[in-house]
């Protein structure tokens, strides 16, 4: 048992064993409480709801490690979704072809990346506070989106778009596969590349990083640009799932992405954070919400339980050293 925990800690970070334990506990608990919990249908429901929140959380994760924040994740996702919708509508709406879809996806990712890069450049070169810069970007993009859509929905996409959002490959929903792929790439980016190394260093101390020869401004800009691309991916997945785009869709998820990062052990003061524990944290949140749903709790209650749950985790985390000391004393 200890060997398994050690191995998990080594490869994914010291947050992981605790989170895995929590998840197992939760699954056992809910299975006892509801016969529908351990069913394929429930798994499908979790796996299809998770990717949206998951992709947005990944987009939030990198700026937080860089000791910043991206409050425009939802706005960027929406504007990217709108870009894709616009391309699809230009090429015939329901009759648009695969090629148009592909072009739209590329353009949407570019728009997301550009919006992120603009935000990052403002933070890096003009020294704007990330909260202010991303808040301004959020309001700007939301305004543009509302102006373009006049506050309404954009819909009427080809059949295959819906197929993407609701289809499965080997029994796993396509959006979930996209999320898993994105999470893996994000893990490589943050844990193994020079850029990821720079993000952690800069997140802890940008001045010392600069004195050591890191290109701090470029790294910060790139962090937000890539975060923007991730937002765009979330926007595209949202479009395929709902078969429509509306500005303001997913607004409620904004702060949940921040909390999911902290639940996954990301340091609120920057410098430290890993993908694997954040991934687990997301699974836990989604499991909790769908489990509560199955045992018949009110839907709004599940949001409250998320909040309570996060508070409990923070308290437990700061209490862990005390707990260790206590256990050591008992053993003696």
């Amino acid at each position, binding site marked *: 048992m200890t060997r398994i925990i050690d191995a998990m800690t080594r490869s994914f970070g010291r947050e992981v064993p605790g989170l895995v334990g929590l998840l197992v506990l939760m699954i056992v608990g809910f299975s006892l409480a509801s016969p529908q919990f351990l069913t394929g249908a429930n798994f499908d429901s979790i796996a299809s709801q998770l990717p949206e929140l998951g992709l947005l959380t990944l987009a939030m994760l990198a700026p937080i490690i860089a000791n910043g924040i991206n409050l425009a994740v939802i706005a960027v996702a929406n504007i990217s979704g709108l870009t894709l919708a616009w391309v699809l509508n230009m090429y015939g709406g329901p009759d648009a072809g695969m090629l148009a879809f592909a072009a739209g996806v590329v353009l949407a990712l570019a728009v997301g990346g550009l919006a992120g890069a603009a935000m990052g450049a403002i933070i890096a070169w003009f020294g704007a506070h990330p909260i202010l810069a991303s808040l301004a970007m959020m309001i700007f993009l939301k305004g543009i989106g509302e102006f373009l859509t006049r506050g309404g929905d954009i819909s009427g996409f080809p059949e295959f778009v819906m197929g993407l959002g609701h289809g499965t490959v080997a029994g796993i929903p396509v959006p979930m596969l996209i999320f898993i792929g994105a999470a893996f790439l994000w893990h*490589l980016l943050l844990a*193994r*590349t*020079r850029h990821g*190394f*720079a993000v*952690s*260093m800069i997140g*802890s*101390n940008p*001045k*010392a*990083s*600069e*004195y*050591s*020869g*890191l*290109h701090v401004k470029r790294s910060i800009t790139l962090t937000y640009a890539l975060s923007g691309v991730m937002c765009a991916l979330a926007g595209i997945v949202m479009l395929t799932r709902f078969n429509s785009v509306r500005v303001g869709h997913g607004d409620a998820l904004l702060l949940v992405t921040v909390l999911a990062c902290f639940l996954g052990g990301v340091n609120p003061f920057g*410098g*430290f954070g890993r993908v694997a524990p954040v991934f687990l944290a997301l699974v836990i949140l989604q499991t909790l919400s769908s489990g509560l749903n199955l045992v018949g709790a009110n839907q709004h209650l599940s949001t409250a339980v998320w909040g309570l749950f996060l508070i409990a985790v923070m308290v437990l985390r700061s209490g862990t050293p005390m707990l260790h000391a206590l256990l050591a004393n008992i053993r003696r």
Partner: protein
Amino acid sequence: MMTAPSTQTAPDGPEAIRFEHISIRFGGLQALDDVSFSVGRGEVHCLAGENGSGKSTLIKAIAGVYQPAPGARMSYFGETIPASSPPLARKKGVAVIWQDLALFPEMTVAENIAFDSLVGKPRLVNYGTIRETARTALGKLGVELDLAAPLRSLPISGRQIVAIARALASDARLIFMDEPTASLTQAETDHLLAVVRVLSKSGVAVVFVSHRLAEVLDISSRVTVLRDGKLVGVFDAAGMTQSRLGELMTGRQLNQAVSARDPGNAPVVLQTAGLTRAGEYEGVNLAIRAGEIVGLIGLIGAGRSELAHTLFGMTRPRAGEIRLAGKPVRFANNRQAIGAGVAYVSEDRLSLGLVQQQSIADNTVITTLRAISGAGGLISARRKSAAVTRGVTEFSTKIGSPDDAVSTLSGGNQQRIVLAKWLAISPKLLILDCPTVGVDVGARDGIYRIVRALADRGIAILMISDEVPEVYFNCDRILHMAAGRIVGEFDPRRTPIAELERTVYA
């Protein structure tokens, strides 16, 4: 031995404090072992010792924070007490001014001074009383400050005066000052000493706590030296020198021989001509040959670090030329300087030299990320750990695990990590800005040996310092910088150290 243990007793009347047979133990660590310490009324006393020698523990025992083991005898102003506590010590007139001063930057000078008299007492704050309290306290010091100015608008030296006035406002008769001169210029130090003289005349005792006491020895009467939690002795300040103090604090003879050599005809690595940046430095001409260690001595504000920043590509000169290995260079940023083989060890290791929160390993490889990357541009774990091992063993740095935060290391070992990360880029020119700041006296020799070894590999070294002995015993040639200009050049083999000290500290 130049100085005999003090035979002189403290001035007349009951002493300010007399603590005898103080022993304090933390877990397995004997922090203080049967130490006795006394200060006379109005005496200026020095408490010296390396980091970890027990200085802070002793102050905290006197301030009532720690309780000594049974057998201790304690008295404040002639009055013996069975046990102390922080409120009791404060009531008896003991005040401690820590290095960080513990003031409130956003509050006014008057509010800071009157703070202790405000806490917990009146429900309503009377600003007239506050100003009166502050004015009286500053008056005792013979200092005038704008009472309504926010504290943050004052320089460090002004804030220190405020901290002293705050102690006086709560009737302190014995003031401990922790490393008071660490961040002061010479003029500011002189001003502080004048204030301390005033205090001493009015019967307030002052204890300087430091490992750098050269500046305050003059006005002190006695020095108490601690080492490893034990009392080394109490000495007369008259005739005491910094180097003798260093020996007493470390318990061994420090290597104090001039190590200057002639670089001969080695190629010139760095040459500047008429380098100027208005308000920082002017008309700087200097040349350093491969393998040569050139000292740049000057007080804080002389423009030394500003010059270093330009050589490292962080700022641009307005006029003049920099040649590196014969070729003129104009760095747009420090990355270009690093690329050209210029390394800079900052004097501020805490916020500029290392990313303190991050691991020893990451701090070691931060300058050579490209070299440790493998397939697909991903950082190779194998190459990284090899680079870290190389960097750590190079200077026999003592570390636990490479994954520990670099902040867990001692000052000397942190500096070795800084040197290792710069050695990894195979520098041509290494700029050391006060390389032993925050490094214990006993560990400095190790750093100096490393610097000499790096010079032996052909690296040109510019060693910036404000301590004359540092450059005198470790450099081949010394440049004296004042008010932004290089005003003199010295050869340690021909100039006596006393002459250099006179010139620099004049």
